[in-house]
């Protein structure tokens, strides 16, 4: 029974659960709904949930656990040294699965009988050729171990399919029967259904947290592997970044970190004042008509893909800055520069800051403004001394979001600031950032076993720590200066 078919059966049982439980509830009180504890629909949903949720959970668990169990069983087919190394082991079992799938395909197309597929040995003609004939291409000749393992794999998978069908169907039917038996006028179906909904809400929030934890852990393990190959002190304190895929690389974080912070700083200098002033104008001064036109227009910027901004940086801003600022004032003649990328990222971030800050300023109660105006303060004094301090925590959040985006921006930097890692104060010089180098270290035909590739994870980890630190700093600032209304 395929997974799809199982899902269909469970769905049918669940709908049956809804209908049956609802009918039984109505019948138990002779159609007088007021004698029921809950509305009839709740009894129906209770039946639906009991018929579906346990069965689906069991199915999901089975699908996760079965490959692990099979792999462990099959390890016995191979000599210990072949399955010791994790990456070789992964490749080996990929082979086993491919051969097993090939045998399945061969049987399905009639090129082999079922018996043949189970009995065939490597000496009885080339298995590779026979599988190639049915459209399954294998990279190398099939070894006896792999073939035997693949045959065992098919056997176990067949048992697994039957087992999971039986288990889930039993659970589904059992849940259905239990729900029908529980249904009665005194049964608190409404409360039970709400408990399930609560569980769903908790599960959703947990998934978000677990994903983050998972990302951090995977980066952490790879970073640790990097530090076993490359000294941590060099990574953190070396002032040169020159990776060399033949070895002898110098992988210093400092130039990349400097580029990242420099570009982010310039972008924040552009986006924070402009965004904030635009927000103040929109929230406090603009008439409704102006606001309804200007706000969507500003937000259009947010919808432009960053690669388009990159083009803008490459063909417009970069040459403009070079021809009118850098060359006349003797700052060099580089088309791509920190200034270019910083300004363009700043423009990218204006709508983020202005839109968020606008909402936050609007959320400050009118009574605060009235109080200030009633004391003879001007509108501008009111905004400076009452509205903005009250909106500070939210504005801080908006600024921080923009900072994180600036630090994480890749495309605009690649096209606007270039890819040369450099430690320089001149903002009209090409530099590069951590994110750009992560991409360039991982693109192309690479294996994750040299310091030159694994450094990407260490870079990613550093980036994560920086943004985390920024968040903590912002939280601290907000707590210190917060002026909370109501």
């Amino acid at each position: 029974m395929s997974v799809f078919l199982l899902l269909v059966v469970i769905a049918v049982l669940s709908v049956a659960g809804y209908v049956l439980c609802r009918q039984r509830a109505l019948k138990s009180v002779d159609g007088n709904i007021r004698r029921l504890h809950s509305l009839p629909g709740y009894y129906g949903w209770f039946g639906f949930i009991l018929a579906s949720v346990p069965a689906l959970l069991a199915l999901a668990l089975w699908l996760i656990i079965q490959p692990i169990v099979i792999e462990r069983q099959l390890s016995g087919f191979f000599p210990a040294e072949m399955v010791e190394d994790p990456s070789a082991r992964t490749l080996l079992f990929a082979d086993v699965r491919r051969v097993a799938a090939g045998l399945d395909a061969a049987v399905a197309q009639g090129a082999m009988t079922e018996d043949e597929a189970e009995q065939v040995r490597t000496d009885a003609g080339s298995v590779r050729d026979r599988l190639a004939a049915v459209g399954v291409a294998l990279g190398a000749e099939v070894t006896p171990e792999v073939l035997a393992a693949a045959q065992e794999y098919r056997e176990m998978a067949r048992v697994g399919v039957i087992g999971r069908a039986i288990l889930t169907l039993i659970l589904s039917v059992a849940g259905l029967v239990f729900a029908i038996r529980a249904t009665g006028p005194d049964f608190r179906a409404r409360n039970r259904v709400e408990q399930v909904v609560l569980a769903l809400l908790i599960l959703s929030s947990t998934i978000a947290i677990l994903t983050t934890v998972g990302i951090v852990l995977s980066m952490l393990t790879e970073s640790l592997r990097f530090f076993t190959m490359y000294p941590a002190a060099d990574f953190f304190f070396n002032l040169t970044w020159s990776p060399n895929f033949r070895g002898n690389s110098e992988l210093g974080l400092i130039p990349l970190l400097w580029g990242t912070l420099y570009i982010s700083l310039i972008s924040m200098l552009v986006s924070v004042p402009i965004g904030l002033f635009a927000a103040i104008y929109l929230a406090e001064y603009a008439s409704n008509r102006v606001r309804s036109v200007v706000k969507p227009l500003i937000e259009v910027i947010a919808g432009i893909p960053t690669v388009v901004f990159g083009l803008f940086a490459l063909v417009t801003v970069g040459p403009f800055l070079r021809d009118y600022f850098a060359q006349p004032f003797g700052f060099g003649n580089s088309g791509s520069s920190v200034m270019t990328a910083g300004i363009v990222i700043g423009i990218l971030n204006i709508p983020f800051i202005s839109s968020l800050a606008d909402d936050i300023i609007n959320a400050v109660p009118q009574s605060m403004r009235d109080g200030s105006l009633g004391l003879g303060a001007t509108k501008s004094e009111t905004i400076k001394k009452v509205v903005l301090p009250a909106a500070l925590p939210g504005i801080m959040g908006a600024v921080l979001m923009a900072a994180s985006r600036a630090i994480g921006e890749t495309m605009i930097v690649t096209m606007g600031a270039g890819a040369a890692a450099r430690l320089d104060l001149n903002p009209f010089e090409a530099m590069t950032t951590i994110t750009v180098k992560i991409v360039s270290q991982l693109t192309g035909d690479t294996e994750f076993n040299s310091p030159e590739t694994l450094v990407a994870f260490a870079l990613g980890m550093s980036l994560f720590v920086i943004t985390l630190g920024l968040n903590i700093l912002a939280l601290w600032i907000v707590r210190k200066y917060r002026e909370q209304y109501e």
Partner: protein
Amino acid sequence: MNDMTHKGLGLATQTAKISASGVQVHYGTNHALKDVDVTILDRTVTAFIGPSGCGKSTFLRCLNRMNDTVASCRVSGQILLEGEDIYDRRVDPVQLRAKVGMVFQKPNPFPKSIYDNVAYGPKIHGMTRNKAELDAIVEASLRKAALWGEVKDRLDATGTGLSGGQQQRLCIARAIATSPEVLLMDEPCSALDPIATAQVEELIDELRHQFSVVIVTHSMQQAARVSQKTAFFHLGNLVEFGETGDIFTNPKDPRTEAYITGRIG
């Protein structure tokens, strides 16, 4: 208009602070206030009473041009503050509001410290030359608002952390810190419990010796307790204006009588 000032008994010594004549207010197409004539005397508490939506708050907000902040609002007629038309082009509403302070229905202390709340007005108007003078104003205002004893040890605590009654007295202290000539109060006790209300009413009576106070209230008992003059508004009209005692014991207009005896409103 001025003859009205002298009509009252024993009030001949008191001068008119604000005199309004023929005031009309429109909110868009809604005619909210129709042809109102009122004279506010110096050092007197004047109460505006009337059912909800009768225009009494609207009129109050005309007196310091807070209605300017409402886009759809149009005011016509004449309102004189010490003989000067406050809707004249030359008058800066910001400076007017420093002279005519306002306390709102819901306590609205700024989310700042108690000290900063009171010091807000004096600071923006540059009323002090140094910290000591500012301290003195803050203390004097809090004392006048009968709040000094309760907060003198925690002036750095946030104003929003006070109780409702304390918050409203803080707002009053904030309003009188700029030494206004008139204090407008828009239902200042409607969000307060009876004890806090009694404190604020006592305070209003104290303030009468220095300012002229205009209070909008829903409570007729409150109007009778704190005011010397009462104006009754109904459906945007000023129905009756006179001595508080006369309004409550001997109303001339049948609508006033109906309202104070509880038949309309």
